[in-house]
């Protein structure tokens, strides 16, 4: 039979790192095809090749039986291939209507037909039950609304293949249902959909077939009805579920070290919790629930309107990061590339950054102490690099994250706050980060860990705080008996 898309023997490398190795992928007309695999398995790269953002290093692509060469986004669009990006990719200063028709402005002789654009945008918004003025600027929408606009943007064009890269990551249940309705309708019209998602239940609900990638290789393709959850996981990790989760005892907390009382900022409301010495306090919740914002308030990045923070029973006021560090509280930020590292500089430079004054006195640089510190931590965290003078940007995501963590550990903190420490790093590196977290709690350091990966944060936490729209819904004493549904109940606003 004729495939809508047939990608064969695709190879791709970024600066000598092979990301895709001999991957083949076929998409039938009118099917919803799940593309699965762990972070870093190569899903997004494969799809970016299909949509013209990256070029392939080798292999062939056929589109409805025709051999094609997709060199740019325009080429892909010309064929009728659209990609809904994982990260929101919109112009914040432009309106909803302008964003939906960004590259396909309704126009005559180069003159924009504003009325028609607004009407068509309104029509599309109605179809998705979105009741927002189409002249609202994108920057004034919340994340979920922005994501819906992204989806509408892709669906507004006449396309044959739509790639959805984690489209539901910040949508509510009703919005997801609505999206699925549209997917089913598109399917009936003969549109093929490639659906990337980490949520198993979505795969089983909406998809017909699935392809799993593992470490840049094709791990397998199957009809969804012929496989179960364990089978998929086995394909994803290449081994059985039990082995992949390095089971450890949850560290137990002792006396309270940090107490947050009725914390109120612009973004979070009336947050109160205790952090016990040596425990791992997890923070779960949807994107935008206020987890990062809570931490930002504690370390003094965001301004506190009211409420108090007690460290060992004494009230502290962190006006900025420096004071937080001096109080023994350090934060490993969410976006390591933006906030955690000076990518263009060396590993050594990055590791020493928070405490330069310790190694540099007037004009004297204590090279030996520097050397020892860098060696100690790169050994302790087993950072894989050519040497401390290698540039941070040339390391893998996992090793970059280890540098960020080690530079903060070197400050000898009492409290380590980790914001999404495992985002975008591979399984092996994740496992290392988990055991590192366990190791540092054994040293008596208390850890707060924010993660959007629910199974992960449930597995590792001593207790789990769940936030919803800036409010702390519940703190759950974790055990293996707590289910995802219980946590999601609070994360969706239950109380």
């Amino acid at each position, binding site marked *: 039979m004729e495939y809508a898309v047939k990608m064969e023997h695709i190879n791709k490398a970024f600066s000598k790192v092979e990301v895709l190795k001999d991957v083949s992928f076929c998409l039938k007309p009118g099917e919803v095809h799940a593309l699965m695999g762990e972070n870093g398995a190569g899903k997004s790269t494969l799809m970016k090749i299909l949509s013209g953002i990256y070029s392939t290093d080798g292999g062939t692509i056929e589109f409805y039986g025709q051999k094609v060469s997709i060199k740019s*986004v*325009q080429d892909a*669009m010309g064929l009728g291939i659209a990609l809904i990006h994982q990260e929101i*990719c919109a112009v*914040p200063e432009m309106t909803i209507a302008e964003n939906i028709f*960004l590259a396909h402005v309704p126009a005559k002789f180069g*003159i*924009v037909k504003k009325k028609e654009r607004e009407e068509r945008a309104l029509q599309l918004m109605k179809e998705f039950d979105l009741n927002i003025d189409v002249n609202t600027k994108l920057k004034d929408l919340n994340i979920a609304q922005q994501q819906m606009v992204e989806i509408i943007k892709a669906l507004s064009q006449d396309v044959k293949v739509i790639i959805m890269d984690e489209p539901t990551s910040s949508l509510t249940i009703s919005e997801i249902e609505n999206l699925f309705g549209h997917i089913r309708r598109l399917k009936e019209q003969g549109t093929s959909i490639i659906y990337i998602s980490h949520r198993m239940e979505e795969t089983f609900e909406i998809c017909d077939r699935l392809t799993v990638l593992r470490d840049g290789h094709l791990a397998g393709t199957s009809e969804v009805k012929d496989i179960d959850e364990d089978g998929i996981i086995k394909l994803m990790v290449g081994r059985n579920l039990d082995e992949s989760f390095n089971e450890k005892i949850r560290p137990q907390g002792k006396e309270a070290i940090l107490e947050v009382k009725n914390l109120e900022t612009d973004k979070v409301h009336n947050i109160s919790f205790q952090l016990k010495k040596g425990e791992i306090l997890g923070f779960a919740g949807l994107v935008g629930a206020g987890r990062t914002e809570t931490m930002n308030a504690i370390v003094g990045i965001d301004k506190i309107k009211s409420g108090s923070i007690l460290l060992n029973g004494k009230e502290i006021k962190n006006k900025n990061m420096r004071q937080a560090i001096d109080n023994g509280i350090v934060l490993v930020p969410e976006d390591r590339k933006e906030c955690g590292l000076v990518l263009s500089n060396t590993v050594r430079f990055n590791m020493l950054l928070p405490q330069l004054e310790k190694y540099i006195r007037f004009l004297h640089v204590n090279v030996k102490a520097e050397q020892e510190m860098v060696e100690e931590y790169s050994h302790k965290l087993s950072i894989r690099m050519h040497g401390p003078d290698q540039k941070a940007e040339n390391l893998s995501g996992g090793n970059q994250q280890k540098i960020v963590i080690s530079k903060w550990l070197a400050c000898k903190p009492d409290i380590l706050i980790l914001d999404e420490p495992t985002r975008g790093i591979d399984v092996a590196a994740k496992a290392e980060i988990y055991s590192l977290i366990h190791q540092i709690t054994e040293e008596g350091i208390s850890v707060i860990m924010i993660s959007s990966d629910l199974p992960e944060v449930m597995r590792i936490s001593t207790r789990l705080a769940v936030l919803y729209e800036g409010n702390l819904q519940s703190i759950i004493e974790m055990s293996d008996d707590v289910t995802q549904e219980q946590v999601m109940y609070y994360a969706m606003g239950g109380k």
Partner: protein
Amino acid sequence: MKILNMVKAYFKRYGGILAALLILCIALSFVSPAFATQNNWINILRQISINALIAFGITQLIIVGGIDLSVGGVVAMSGCTSVVLINSGMPVAIAVILALLTGLLAGLINGFCVTVVKIVPFVVTLASFNIYSGLAYVVSNGSSVACKNIAFSKLGTGYIGAVPVPVIVMGVIMLLCWLIMNKTVLGQHIYATGGNERAAEYAGINTKKTRMFCYSLCGVLAAIAGVVLAAKMYSGQPTVGVGYEGDAIAASVLGGVSFEGGAGTIGGTLIGAIVIGVISNGLNLVGASYQTQLIAKGIIILIAVGIDTLKKEHVFNNLFGKVKNV
């Protein structure tokens, strides 16, 4: 109703800078009786026309995420070119068109270095400023070239009715730029590219072409300014363009153009240019020395933009928000 809303939106957007302009005007009309006369206002508009022409080009370039520091060089180069060609006996129209083509070429070279060679715009235009200034010296043979062609000098000194020709040129160019930015697909692409280049690229917009257009337009507008200026001065002068980029950028920023790209308007830039013109004019009227004028201009720009930035950071809302709620 619709018009009322538009007026409201206009004041909401430009309220701060308009208020500053109004206060400045009221103060000046008390200090100097000559200020609030029709003649003086026509004079102000004529004085700002050169700066505004350059600033319109700079505005759309900053919106698309670029910058052009070479405009002063282009002004000198095109001015000298037009005068030298006319003196050699060429018809005025053809000489002017060729002078404008030098601006287009300058813009294309800037655009090529930025979009294809991928050098940072700041560096490209810092370097090309020297090239274009140098070429102005080459064309003019190192000194100012007088032009005795009366038809040509009308471009800078003539009137149509009561309105000076440079002001009319400014008006026409402003309308054109406004149409491009607000009514055309190209304008949409400019805002999109400057607002989020990756999003624009992923949406299938040819961002290279878009930026190339902006650099070319900026070059042409600077060349128009150069020709008008040469006509006004009855001569092509190779030294004339120094510092023009500063005033043009100041006008854009005063008018609300964001250096982050993606935001700003042509109308705002006109207001910015008027503010700068009124400051110079007012200080002239009260007899302030050139050096005082420079210092005052710098301080006023800093204050105006500072207030605007603080407004965006919601500092004022936090300070005065509670008062408002009472």
